[in-house]
């Protein structure tokens, strides 16, 4: 996940929107089409790699991430995945869209697919981890710096110290899985932070928990 998606704690997004109890899942029909296209389309790459999809979301530019709404963002990310695997040509979607509205356009030829050489070892994201967990509930841990490339370690917890609340089932590691470089399953911990540790002494008083992978953590004193 890159900086554009890593918005926990960021300023500038304004007020939240009060819930509407009867809101439908899709505000407009195209959102449902984009939803289904994304779920099916990502499965045409190599495995149904949700981490690769999330990494594609995180590599969108500002407009592609924010301006088309949630399902527009999905559409843009699956288009990126399909283009990178040469399942569709760069510009193919825009060219077809222009043709659909009556413009005279030359559509690019269909390329030869170049998909990642990867297949998941099992369905889903949970995996057995052979080694015992490094940390136990009650242990103090510190979140390491955010690595370059795909990760599920958000900036707002990086460098901060919390306490392991529970050990969750092992997961394949998004950092490598997102780029089709292996599952590398790890233990995952729910880590609890005090709000003042994250945001300073003037913060509202509350606790926050987040799931952190083993390699995101180091022991704290």
């Amino acid at each position, binding site marked *: 996940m890159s900086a554009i998606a890593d918005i926990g704690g960021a300023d500038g997004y304004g007020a939240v929107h009060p819930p509407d109890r009867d809101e439908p899942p899709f505000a407009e029909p195209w959102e449902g089409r984009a939803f289904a296209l994304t779920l099916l389309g990502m499965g045409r790459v190599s495995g149904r790699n949700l981490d690769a999809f999330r990494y594609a979301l995180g590599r969108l530019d500002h407009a592609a991430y924010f301006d088309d709404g949630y399902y527009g963002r999905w559409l843009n990310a699956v288009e990126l995945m399909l283009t990178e695997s040469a399942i569709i040509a760069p510009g193919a979607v825009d060219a077809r869209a222009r043709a659909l509205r009556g413009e005279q356009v030359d559509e690019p030829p269909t390329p030869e697919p170049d998909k990642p050489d990867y297949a998941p070892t099992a369905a889903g994201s949970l995996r057995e981890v052979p080694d015992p967990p490094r940390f136990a509930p009650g242990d103090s841990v510190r979140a390491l710096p955010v690595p370059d490339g795909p990760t599920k370690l958000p900036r707002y917890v990086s460098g901060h110290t919390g306490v392991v609340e529970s050990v*969750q089932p092992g997961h394949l590691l998004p950092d490598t899985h997102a780029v089709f470089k292996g599952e590398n399953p790890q233990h995952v911990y729910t880590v609890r932070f005090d709000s003042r540790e994250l945001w300073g002494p003037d913060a509202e008083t509350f606790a926050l928990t987040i799931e952190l992978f083993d390699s995101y953590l180091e022991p704290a004193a």
Partner: protein
Amino acid sequence: MTTERLPASLRTEALEQILTERGLVDPGVMDKFIANYETNVGPLNGAKVVAKAWTDPDYRERLLAEGTAAIKELGFSGPQGEHIVVVENTATTHNVTVCTLCSCYPWPVLGLPPSWYKDPAYRARVVREPRTVLHEMGLDLADDVEIVVRDSSSEVRWLVLPERPAGTEHLTEEQLVPLITRDALVGVAKVAAP
């Protein structure tokens, strides 16, 4: 060189057409996906889970210990439900869930996330000033209630077991279900007595 952004609706139609022509997606399968989330998979599932937990102490215990398995007992499972952890809201502790990095959400019990949950404002702010955010959403908590924000950064999905409101002791499981809202199951509201 034009930099015009084409509407997402038009680009969706274009991608569907391209992939359909190539036999890579089946529009009929897409229709079924969409209809499933429009009609079957929604917060009514979560409401049924909670109503059962409120009226069946053994089920409540199983739900809090092994959420995924207890939820599956009622027939609810599927994508975004590999490992669901249920946390209980009480008079003294209030859990509220978010996914700051995307909008991860327990689909089998809540359906697809509502717009406010996907909104960058909610994602960015509820991990920093949850009391203020909850107030803006219409929920004022007493100062001595501990708030616990649950940021869903892995495949673990959180479901809130809301507090059963006073004055509902005489209601049956079936009568409780319609009182239980999506917002209470995420933790941005409480369940109100009828």
